[in-house]
């Protein structure tokens, strides 16, 4: 495993070297070099924006194939709540859960059920830790990574509690081991995910030592496989659902914060909006706010790149589905659950730093300014960097050169040909 793992990858043969993705990336992590895009891994936060924008479908997410189930004797499916928003006219979550079992899973453990436990813990944590207000949600791994590399002063505000999927994984494993008497390695805990960020979170978790998830399947791949089984299940639905309105609400924006039973919260979604909120939080522009829910995807997890339904329609569907459910079905005092507080520190990783020390950095920044005077300031992207400034920073970092700017190259060639013609005349 490399130091920086990301799950967004480039399919080189499909990449045309256009500049759509470099312009869209919120952390300026993509460059086009030698006609192909490439991702600077330490800057990437797995938000999936490049996958959404690429017209040639050259950016893809890595995830596991359903074949991974064959590796284990007993498999438990962990469906994300956003899954329930993908289907038309679904009025009972149990149909999806029964279908998952028909598809080959031995058991299901809803992430939304663990989410209800996390909500209870969060309520307590927020009430007891006024000095950490506003507490920032940590369920979206993209947001957590973003804060870790770019907003060091907010790290202390992160909710130090497992994301629902990670708690679900532990609880599901404990339950399976108890029920089957199988050793841990024979049990597969398989997450059905709306996004590639969760793949990264499994490979290099933040705040926890090791993820208990063995495989991550893409919702969009499971969706068509599930449909026929759902038709079959309708007649004989197993009662498997263990979550209420609160748990299922987590699938779209506002659900997590709404579960805290306070009005004193902010919920923002869409990566650009999230960044704006973080900037302002860092400047302490919001006072007396208790909780901040942030989702990298527009609409929340229903807007993840691995989903199929339009996020806003999915949100409506979740709302309809929740309407007749009890508020919450899983509770800490009745449910068997592991302790879910983070065990690891989250250190600031200044990946954007220009130099090794302050003196070197100042020098490099001065060079950037100098270069900026040379460049035309068009931010045209022809050099493969998203802005003139990004190219200047690449140059001082030693990974690009001035002539990558086609305007500088053109001037250089003009000068050269002028000199050549003068040379010719002299002869």
């Amino acid at each position: 495993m490399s130091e920086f793992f990301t799950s967004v990858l480039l399919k080189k043969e499909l990449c045309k070297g256009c500049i759509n993705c470099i312009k869209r990336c919120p952390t300026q992590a993509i460059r086009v070099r030698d006609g192909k895009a490439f991702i600077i891994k330490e800057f990437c936060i797995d938000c999936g924006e490049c996958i959404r924008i690429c017209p040639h479908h050259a950016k893809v997410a890595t995830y596991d194939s359903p074949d991974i189930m064959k590796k284990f004797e007993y498999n438990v499916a962990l469906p994300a709540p956003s899954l329930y928003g993908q289907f038309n006219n679904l009025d009972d979550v149990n149909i999806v859960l029964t279908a998952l079992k028909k598809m080959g899973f031995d058991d299901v453990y809803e992430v939304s059920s663990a989410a209800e436990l996390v909500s209870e813990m969060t309520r307590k944590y927020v009430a007891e830790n006024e000095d950490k207000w506003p507490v920032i949600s940590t369920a979206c791994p993209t947001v957590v990574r973003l804060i870790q590399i770019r907003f060091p002063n907010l790290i202390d505000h992160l909710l130090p509690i497992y994301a629902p999927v990670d708690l679900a994984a532990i609880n599901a494993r404990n339950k399976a081991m108890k029920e089957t008497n199988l050793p841990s390695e024979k049990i597969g805990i398989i997450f059905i995910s709306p996004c590639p960020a969760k793949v990264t979170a499994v490979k290099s978790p933040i705040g926890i030592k090791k993820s208990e998830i063995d495989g991550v399947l893409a919702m969009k791949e499971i969706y068509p496989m599930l449909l026929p089984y759902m038709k079959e299940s309708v007649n004989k639905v197993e009662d498997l659902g263990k979550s209420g309105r609160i748990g299922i609400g987590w699938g779209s924006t506002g659900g997590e914060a709404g579960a805290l039973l306070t009005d004193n919260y902010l919920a923002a979604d869409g990566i650009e909006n999230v960044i704006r909120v973080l900037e302002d939080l860092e400047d302490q522009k919001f006072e007396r706010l208790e909780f901040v829910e942030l989702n990298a995807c527009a609409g929340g997890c229903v807007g993840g790149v691995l989903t199929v339904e339009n996020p806003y329609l999915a949100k409506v569907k979740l709302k309809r589905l929740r309407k007749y459910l009890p508020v919450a079905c899983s509770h800490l005092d009745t449910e068997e659950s592991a302790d879910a507080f983070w065990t690891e520190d989250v250190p600031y990783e200044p990946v954007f730093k220009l130099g090794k020390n302050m003196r070197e950095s100042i020098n490099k920044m001065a060079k950037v300014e100098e270069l900026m005077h040379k460049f035309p300031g068009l931010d045209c992207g022809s050099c493969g960097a998203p802005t003139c400034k990004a190219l200047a920073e690449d140059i001082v970092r030693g990974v690009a050169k001035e002539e990558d700017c086609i305007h500088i190259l053109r001037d250089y060639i003009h000068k050269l040909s002028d000199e050549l013609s003068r040379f010719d005349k002299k002869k």
Partner: protein
Amino acid sequence: MNEKIVLRYEVDPNDFTRAGEASSNVKRRLKLLGVDPDIVRKVAISLYEGEINMVIHSYGGIIEVIISPEEIEMILTDKGPGIEDIELAMQAGYSTAPDNIRNLGFGAGMGLPNMKKYSDEFNIESTVGVGTTVKMKVFIPKE
């Protein structure tokens, strides 16, 4: 060798859409320089308060920020109207902000006290009819 970075920002009076631009730009640069997060925070808070004061209370002016390996110096100079009683203005809770500004969430009278609190060196001079100059420094401890 360049030992310093000098940054200059013009501040327009009453332009709330751009208020905070200078401080967030400085903040971004300090992170690029790898300055300790605590220092970034001190600079960001004190500079933001000063910038907002220029937008709300002054006729506009210039912010100059000088970054060296030892310290970050901020000089905010505006073109008036000036402050009559600096001691009073420095008191926590004192504000002359009108209602429309208070509705925007400003006007708690905490700006100047916080600038003093978060900077390591703070100095304010003002002449009524001429303008106000605030000089602040935040020191960077040796690595």
